[in-house]
Each structure stands twice: as C-alpha cells, then as structure tokens.
C-alpha cells in the first residue's frame, strides 16, 4: 500500500530536505557566485567550454588527495605530507619510465615491439606508484594509529622525509621523457561519441539507483516520498551530467581522462564514507573517540585504514601529476597539502573532526581551482592570488565556526 502525502506534508518534507542539506546548498551557491563574478570580470571568457574544461582538469590532482583528506580530517587527524608524498610517487614514476625500465625492459621482453614495451612500462609504473603510495600509507598509519604518535608530527616528518626522497631520486634534475601511454592518462580525451555513451550510462545508473532504492524502501514498509520528487532529483543530476558532457567537455575536446578517473574515485569514496561500516566508524571516531571506543569499535584499525587509503590516493594523484607535466621534477607536489586541506575545509569538512563529505571535497576543490583559474585568466598578480586564496580559507573556517556555535556542537 503506497502512502500518500498531502501537499502540506510535501512542502514540509522538502523544506526538511533543504535544511538537512543546507551546507551543500550554501557551497554550491558560493561556487556559482564565484563563477558569476569571474564571468563578469573576464567578459565571459571564464565560462567558455575550453576554460571550464581546463578548470575541471586542473582540479583533479588536488581532488584525489581531498577525497582521502576528508576521511583523515573526519577522524580528527591531519596529513601534512601529501604534497611531498605525491612528489615522491611522481619522482619514482618518472625514474622508472625514463631511466630504469628503458634499460631493463627490452632485455626482459625482447619479442615485443617498442610501442608495447612503452605500454608495459606504463603498467609497471602505475602499479609501482600505487605501491609507493601504499607503503607511505602503511608507514604513517602504523606510526599514528598503533604507536600513538600524533598525526601532525608523523606527517610533518613525512613531509620532510618524502621531499628528501624526491631530491635523492631526481638528483636535483628534471627526469624526462615519459611514455605517451602515461601522458595519455593525464592529458588524453575520450571522443565525443564515447562521451555521449558515458553520459547515457551514467544517467541510466542514476535513475535505476533511484528506483531500486524506492523499491527497497517499500519492501521494508517505509513511507515513500512522491515519485515525482525522486524523479526530479534524479533528473537534476542527469542535467548536470549532460551540461558537463555536452557543453563543457564536448564543447572543447571531449571528456578528459583524469576527470573521468576522478569521477570514478569520487563515487567509490563517497560510497565508502556513507555506506560502509568503516565509513560510519570514521565519523563516529571524529565525533567522539571515547564513546566510539566504548561501543566496541577498533579505533586503531580504522585510523590505520584511513591512512592507507590516503597513501593510495597519493599514488593515484602522483601518477596523474607525472603524466600531466610529462616529467618528474624536484618541486612536484609542493604545497599540495595546503591546497588539499583548504579544499576540504572550504567544502564543509569540520576542523574538529566528525563532519565532512566527499561531495563537499569536490565542490571545495572546484572552488579552489576556480579561484586559481579565474584569477589567472584575469591576469591578476600572483601575490594577490595567494592573498585571496588565504582569505577565502579563513572565511570558510569562520563560517564553520559560526554554524557550530548555532547548532551548539563544540
């Protein structure tokens, strides 16, 4: 039997949904405001498909890191080493591609043509980079979770150690060349047709998820909200997907590979954070560590896993960075930790732990990338760019502090 709501109840329900998602709406509003501002100040150049397309690509390297950083911050920890870690992964990747593998691969696989050797080199490099990230995560996670050294110190140490590693591997020089196949990961595009197929698949997925969820709810006997509300919600997200694919991506050269990769990783991490035990525990730990422990949750194991995931994401980010600059450099990843933490916090992650979303991290990364991109398009002096980004971060935290005061959570 389907439960039917009156108009009044529906209005109340909608306002309830808006209230629950106030933070998300506020962030999206802030983003649109920034875009509108830049659109006016750049005479529309900012909103051209080419620029927006670049903007999305620019945000990817930081947003990979932000997905992991959200979980780190939610558990009440911090990771200051991600910039250096990305630099190290990138340096190892470039070293393998440009120096080590070209020496040994032709001997190991003599029967392969040189193009295939390039692909083999990239596969090995990608796996190796992820392993470096994993190792970093294991190391820092163990020190923080099991030895009880504060994450601030462990990762401050890591920041220096990994930067040292970068200098050691690069010997102070830029390492080139990088295989085309690795460059493709970071700079390649999906054709227009593929883009449209992807868009259709994503929209189908959105709708089938929505209706599967409704069926589940019904089978458990919960009241359903009117079908048109759910349809409208699914439709809204579908339109966003279409705008991105048809206007932004296909308006320039197509969907960029790193953006596609980012979307996949975002969905995975969003799922981990909202729909798994591990994710739930992370929020509980950040909200009240003692109460969580007394509820029988293994806090150490959870924090260990959070750092491992962060390490793996440093691996992903490092691979994309290597492909994008097509080199391994001594300065790779410098200051990324600051941009990442800023993106998370602008995206509504609480500095006190316990609150934050992957969606927020995406918006936060997008806001940071928009500021950078917009100010560059405006040809603003670099010193102003730093000052404005710093001010935006402080204002974002102040808003967080204010909203905490209002809800009485401190």
């Amino acid at each position, binding site marked *: 039997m389907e439960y039917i709501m009156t108009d009044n109840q529906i209005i109340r329900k909608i306002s309830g949904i808006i209230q*629950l998602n106030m933070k998300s709406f506020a962030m999206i509003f802030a983003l649109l405001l920034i875009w509108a501002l830049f659109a006016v100040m750049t005479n529309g150049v900012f909103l051209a498909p080419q620029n927006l397309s670049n903007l999305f690509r620019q945000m990817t390297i930081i947003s990979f890191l932000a997905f992991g950083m959200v979980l780190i911050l939610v558990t009440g920890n911090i990771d200051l080493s991600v910039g250096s870690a990305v630099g190290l992964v990138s340096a190892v990747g470039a070293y393998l591609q440009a120096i080590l593998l070209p020496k040994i691969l032709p001997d190991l696989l003599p029967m392969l043509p040189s193009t295939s050797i390039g692909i083999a080199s990239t596969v090995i490099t990608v796996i190796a980079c992820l392993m470096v990230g994993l190792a970093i995560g294991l190391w820092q996670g163990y020190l923080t979770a099991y030895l009880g050294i504060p994450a601030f110190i462990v990762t401050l140490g890591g920041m220096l150690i990994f930067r040292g590693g970068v200098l050691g591997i690069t010997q102070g020089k830029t390492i080139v060349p990088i295989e085309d196949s690795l460059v493709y990961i970071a700079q390649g595009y999906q054709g227009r047709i593929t883009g449209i197929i992807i868009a259709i698949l994503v929209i189908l997925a959105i709708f089938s998820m929505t209706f599967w969820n409704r069926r*589940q*709810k019904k*089978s*458990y*006997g*919960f009241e359903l909200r009117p079908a048109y509300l759910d349809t409208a919600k699914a439709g809204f997200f579908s339109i966003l997907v279409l705008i991105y694919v048809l206007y932004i991506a296909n308006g320039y050269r197509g969907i960029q590979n790193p953006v596609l990769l980012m979307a996949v990783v975002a969905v995975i991490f969003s799922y981990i954070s909202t*729909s*798994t*035990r591990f994710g*739930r*525990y992370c*929020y*509980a730990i*950040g*909200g*009240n560590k*003692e*109460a*969580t*422990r*007394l*509820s*029988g*949750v*293994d806090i150490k194991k959870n924090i260990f896993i959070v750092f491992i995931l962060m390490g793996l994401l440093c691996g992903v980010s490092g691979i994309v960075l290597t492909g994008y600059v097509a080199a391994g450099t001594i300065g790779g990843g410098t200051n990324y930790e600051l941009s990442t933490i800023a993106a998370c916090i602008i995206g509504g992650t*609480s500095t006190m732990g*316990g*609150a934050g979303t992957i969606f927020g991290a995406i918006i936060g990364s997008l806001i940071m990338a928009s500021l950078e991109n917009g100010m560059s398009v405006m040809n603003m002096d670099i010193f102003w760019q730093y000052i404005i980004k710093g001010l935006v971060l402080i204002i974002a935290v102040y808003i967080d502090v204010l909203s905490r005061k209002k*809800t*009485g*959570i401190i």
Partner: protein
Amino acid sequence: MNDYILEIKNVSKQFPGIKALSDVSINIRRGGIHGLCGENGAGKSTLMKILAGVYPHGAYDGEILLNSTPLRNSYIGDALKNGIAIVHQELALIPYMTVGENIYLGREPVSHGIINRHKLYADTKEILKKYDLDIPFSAKISSLGVGRQQMVEIAKALSEDARILILDEPTSALTDTEINALMRILNTLREKGVTCIYISHKLEEFFRITDTVTVLRDGMVVDTIDTAGADTEALIAMMVGREMTERFPEGKRNPKKVIMEVRNLTAYDQASRDKKVIKDISFTVRKGEILGIAGLMGAGRTELATTIFGEFGTRISGDIIINGEKITVTSARDAIDNGIHLVPEDRKGLGLITTQSILENISLPNIHRFSSIFRIDKHKELQECERLAKDMSVKCRSLLANINSLSGGNQQKVVISKWLMTRPRVLILDEPTRGIDVGAKYEIYKFMNELAEQGMAIIMISSELPEILGMSDRILVMCEGECKGILEKKDATQEIIMTLATGMNGVHND
C-alpha cells in the same frame, strides 16, 4: 567585632526544576574549623560556589555577612579579595612550574616589568615558614606528591591573605601520613587565627579536627552541632532520612541462577602501579536481578564498572566469571563480546556522538547486524533501530535528526537502547537517571524492570539512596575502593548504607 566571621542567613538557590538550597543559615565561628557534611547532592558544593562567587550576588536569595558586613561577590575574583579561598578537590596547579611560581601566578612581583625572582622566592619562603609548611620553595610541582601539592594550594590561598579557607574533600586522594600532615597544618592555621570550612565524606575526620559540624540534607540544614560530645551515629542519622518522594514501578523480578561472578577484583592506578583504585572486590549477580552499587563520591563505583568493562586493560588482578567460565577482559571489545555492556555516567562525554543522528548513535555498536564489509543495509538499519526506539519510547520527530535535538531523558534512552539490540547478559548502568526529569526517570525504571524480568542481569550505580533502595534486589556498598558489604533489599536502610559508605564498621552479610 562579633564571634562569627561569616554568617550565612536564609540562603536559597533555585535551579530549573530543583531547589538546591533552601533557607540555609549557618554561622561560622572566627578562627575555628567548621565541618560540613551531607550525602551526594545535599547542597554542599552549591553553598561553596556561592561563597566563592561562582554564583554571584543576586543569583541566590538570602544574605551572607562577612565580618558583619554584607558579602556581595560579583565574580569569582571577588571572593578572594574578600579573603575567602577554596582549595578544590582537583588541584589546579601548573605541573611544570615551581612552587613559588605557582603560588604567585598572576601576581608575580615585578621590577621594571621584569619578574623579580629573588623577591618571589623570598616571599614564598616567608609564607611557607610562617605556616610551618614543609615544601621546597623552588621544586617543580610535578615532583611533589599529592599531599604536598595540596600544601602549595593552601600556601597560595594564604599568600593572598585568605582569612577563610574552604577545603573541599582535602583528604580524598591522600595517604595516612599525608592526612596526618594536613591535620597538623590545620591546627597551625587555627593557632594563627585562620578560619577553615572543612568538607568531607569521612565522618571520623570531623571528630578529629573540626569544632562544629553542619549537616546538610536535600539543600536544607539539618542541624549544626559541636563535635565534642557527638558521635558518628548521630551524624549518620542526620545525613540520611531523605524523603522517598519518588515512585518506583513495581517489579515482578525473580532472580535465579548466577550469571556473573567477580572474585577478588583489584585495579591499579595508571600513574602508579602501587595505588589500588578498587581493592579486592568479590560479588555475584544473578539473571533477572538488579544489583545496586551505593557509595559516596569517589568511592570507586565507576571504577568498578569500568574495570569489569576492560578499561583498566591489564592493570587488574582477580577473576571475572561469566556462566561459570573465567573470561579475560582487557578492552571494551572483550567485555561486549562477553555480553557485558556499559552505559557510562558521562552521557555527553562517553555515551553519545553529538555530531551524529539518533539513528547512527543507536546503530553504532550494532552495525555488524545489518552490514557486510562492503555495505550497510540502511533500510534494515532504519527498520530495526526504529523498532527499538519505539520500544524504548524515544520521543523524536525522526531518527535522522541530530541527537542534540533530544531532551536529556530521551538521550539517555538512546544510550541505553543502543545496547539492547544484542540482548546483553549483564547491563551496567552508571547513574542512569542523573540530570533527567521525573517522567523519563520513571520510564527508565520501568525498562529496567522489564529487562530484568526478561532475564537480564543489571548492575545499577547510583548516588541517590531512594533510587538504590527502590530499585535494587541487593545492594553493594563501596567506600574508598573497597566493598564494605552486600545487603539484601529487606535488610537495607538508608542508615545502614550510609554507615557502610562512610567507612564506619558495619554489618557484613552475603
């Protein structure tokens, strides 16, 4: 100048829903040591907070005369200016600073804007000598024992020309030697004309050191008596006898077989392994029984609960036996896996996750019931938690609302209900009704009865004697980390419990 340095006249203090002090009048004799005793919640600390200016003039009714002139504290510092200083139970010294630096913290003697260390230490030396306090003036606080740290607190108060010194349970953390030293100091202070107000749970101390004692009960003065010629029985008789104003639901409990046995359980302090937090405690609890644990503040009741719950890790000795099998409990996880669940006393600090929803709070220890490693079945989660919340009559608009949107009583129901999904064998409730309204209290009592009737063993720690007497089948009374006796409900009276809880020798049965 009259005989009394401090005259408290008809002081009342009202908190929302509760009258903490009503019409309290006490006269404190100049240069004497005046004792103040009463059960937990009798109003001692409220009275002290009024004297210390925590509740400023105007926040209470009545009048206080200091040297026959009205005392009007408008903030905490005022009391000190008027010569009233409190030495708190928890010492408030900075461990990395020296004795002298602590005594003159915030009032350092300066010359040309620079701290004059020589004068600071010279002044410290003088104060210590004047009151015959045996402490090295330049030692770091962290190198001193609790007893000497307390002397520093006293010296600090005296250096600020305190004429009235309030000591709030000064002996609760001291060894016998330290207590002797403290008594000596108090006698010296008496000779020097300093007035002391001495608050304690240990009745024999009143006869050892004080001249007069005022007994408070339910925010009212029962009587003020001269200690000479009185005895502990007389004090206990005055302390107890609280009205049984609350109703307790009738339970049809029928305790049968022993589910948990605790044998010679001892737990050691984290800082010093020689110090025992709870000492050699043995008891049993049966299926379907409510075992009450009574005792005064600091008797080690919460520590007993947390020891059973694994919070002391490996710093314990003795046995915990469940269903005839000896178990090892070194973490909360171990306890939970063995069916022992704890609802902690500090609801906000240890019970709730205030950033999360009601649903997430209830579900936290139970998530494994509706999830695999890869996915939480959120519909099943909501369904089961909703059923539980309904059984516990948690009043809320939606389980998705933040836990902070609930009243204290409903929050407590949430904290209890999160443990009920797994049907624990032993449920430990630490002060389950603290700070919640009468209606919710009654409901929680009803749940306790229901759960016990269904065969759960409940251990209830409470500071309220009527609650202990009204709800328990048997009552374990603790004092200073020891079990002083286990009483059957029919044998228990407020007097007997209080006698045991204050460390007087009493009956032992069971």
